[in-house]
């Protein structure tokens, strides 16, 4: 018979959470921040807006009905960019084409006509489309 080690009871602080036991994870030292889609796709947080693509005028550029467009307003649009434009009270997504003083909004679908901007029309290039997301499987 051995006496119990130390006759005094040991008081342990009562924690609400579990005390981890066992061998520490060897990966702990190699922890790094994980990949963030926000960081990959959004370059200017305060100038970035999401827009929903409608219709099929841009399918040739890989933009489909219901796609999520990431739009950056801070980028100066150049010819060839896919842009969101306000034209005559409507909102459209098209490829911007500038040739000299001619401004066109070109669809990427042969069944759609391109829009040639005329003097006297209201046109505002609202923002440049940076990326688009297609959902292939709804969960």
């Amino acid at each position: 018979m051995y006496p119990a080690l130390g006759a005094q009871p040991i008081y342990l602080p009562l924690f609400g959470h579990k005390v981890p036991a066992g061998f520490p994870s060897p990966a702990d030292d190699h922890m790094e921040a994980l990949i963030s889609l926000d960081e990959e796709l959004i370059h200017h947080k305060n100038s970035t807006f999401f827009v929903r693509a409608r219709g099929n005028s841009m399918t040739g550029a890989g933009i489909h009905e219901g796609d999520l467009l990431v739009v950056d307003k801070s980028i100066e649009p150049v010819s060839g960019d896919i842009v969101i434009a306000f034209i005559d009270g409507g909102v459209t997504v098209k490829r911007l084409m500038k040739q000299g003083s001619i401004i066109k909004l070109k669809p990427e679908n042969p069944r759609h006509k391109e829009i040639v901007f005329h003097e006297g029309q209201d046109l505002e290039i609202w923002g440049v489309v940076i990326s688009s997301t297609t959902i292939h499987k709804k969960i």
Partner: protein
Amino acid sequence: MPIALVDCNNFYVSCERMFNPKLEGKPVVVLSNNDGCAVSRSNEVKALGIKMGEPWFRMKDISKQHGIIALSSNYTLYGDLSARVMATLANFSPQQEIYSIDECFLDLGGFDPKTLAEYGQKIRKTVKRNVGIPVCVGIGDTKTLAKLANHCAKKGLSGSDGVCDFGQLNSQRRSELFSSIPVGEVWGVGRKITEGLAKLNIKTVEDLRRASPEYLRQQFSIVLVKTVNELNGIPCIELEEAGTPRQQIMVSRSFGSSVSALDGLSESVAHYTTRAAEKLRRDGSIAASICVFIRTNPFREKDEQYSRSIVVPLLQSTDDTTKLVKSALIGLKSIYKPALNYAKSGVLLMGLHEKGSAQRTLFDDPAEQPRSDKLMYVLDSINQKMGKDSLTIGASGTKQRWAMRRELKSQNYTSDINELLEAW
């Protein structure tokens, strides 16, 4: 030391126009909560002589005649765009004071004074392009002068390019300009002071600037003396930088139609408490007590009037919706008086402090806190993903008859994935 005041033009209307091209060039007015009165007007509406605060029912005829488009206020949208504007402006100065949802002061000390107007243009262009909101910039040596310069920029009193830098005006030109502006336009000079000044024949900004500070101190208060000093380029009001966390959170609304039963009031109080608790958690704070208030409509003079509030202290500071609602409803029950037409209720969370600095009490259940945190986390995540009020506690009811009238509200373009701008 030059200071700029940057102010968004017709801010709420500009926010609405940003997502709706059909509003461009049309008379547009944004109405207050419950679609009561005009809180933001497009230039076309201002030109029709419609004043700020004009009640909507009085505007209805003129609206029909001129095709005015009225919208309910969409504070979720305005709040987001305001944050974007302010963050963009913060890049232009090491010191920024956000003064309201649509204006801020920027310290421009250290810049070459000759280039400030140009810098103002750069600010204007950047905010317009990067966020989409038009702003005006006023530059002066004090906050009061910057405010006044902004007024001049907006009204086109000194050039018409949306920027006014008083530093560019020689003293004669400045006197002329100030002589043309009524004294009531000066920051801090309200209607009452304007009337008082008129009796002393002080009618324009120039009159006030030349008035004797000693004399004004006797007639009015030290505050007005500071204003006069500021108009003369002597800084008396310091730039205050943001960063002090909220001291209290209030959520209160007028009902769409009056409510008499305790049930209906309880639902509204539970709902507002839910909203307040969400804000509290977003700030990472906890509240020590909650104040509940109810009142009847003072404009319905035939009704019996009643207005009461009560502060309910919490046993332990919390950010848990269920606990806050429980306390709020106990408070409501104790001040409720039956058979009255209630027009408004609200809650105020008080004694806010940082979460984690909470004092434990004798009656704490240590397992309870993580449970509550987890529950609130799930609640917030679901509502963020599925839309506001997808998951609520039972006490806030399902019909919400008392809910705000916002029949003409635009979509939550930036905060709800199901309400985005659509491009064809």
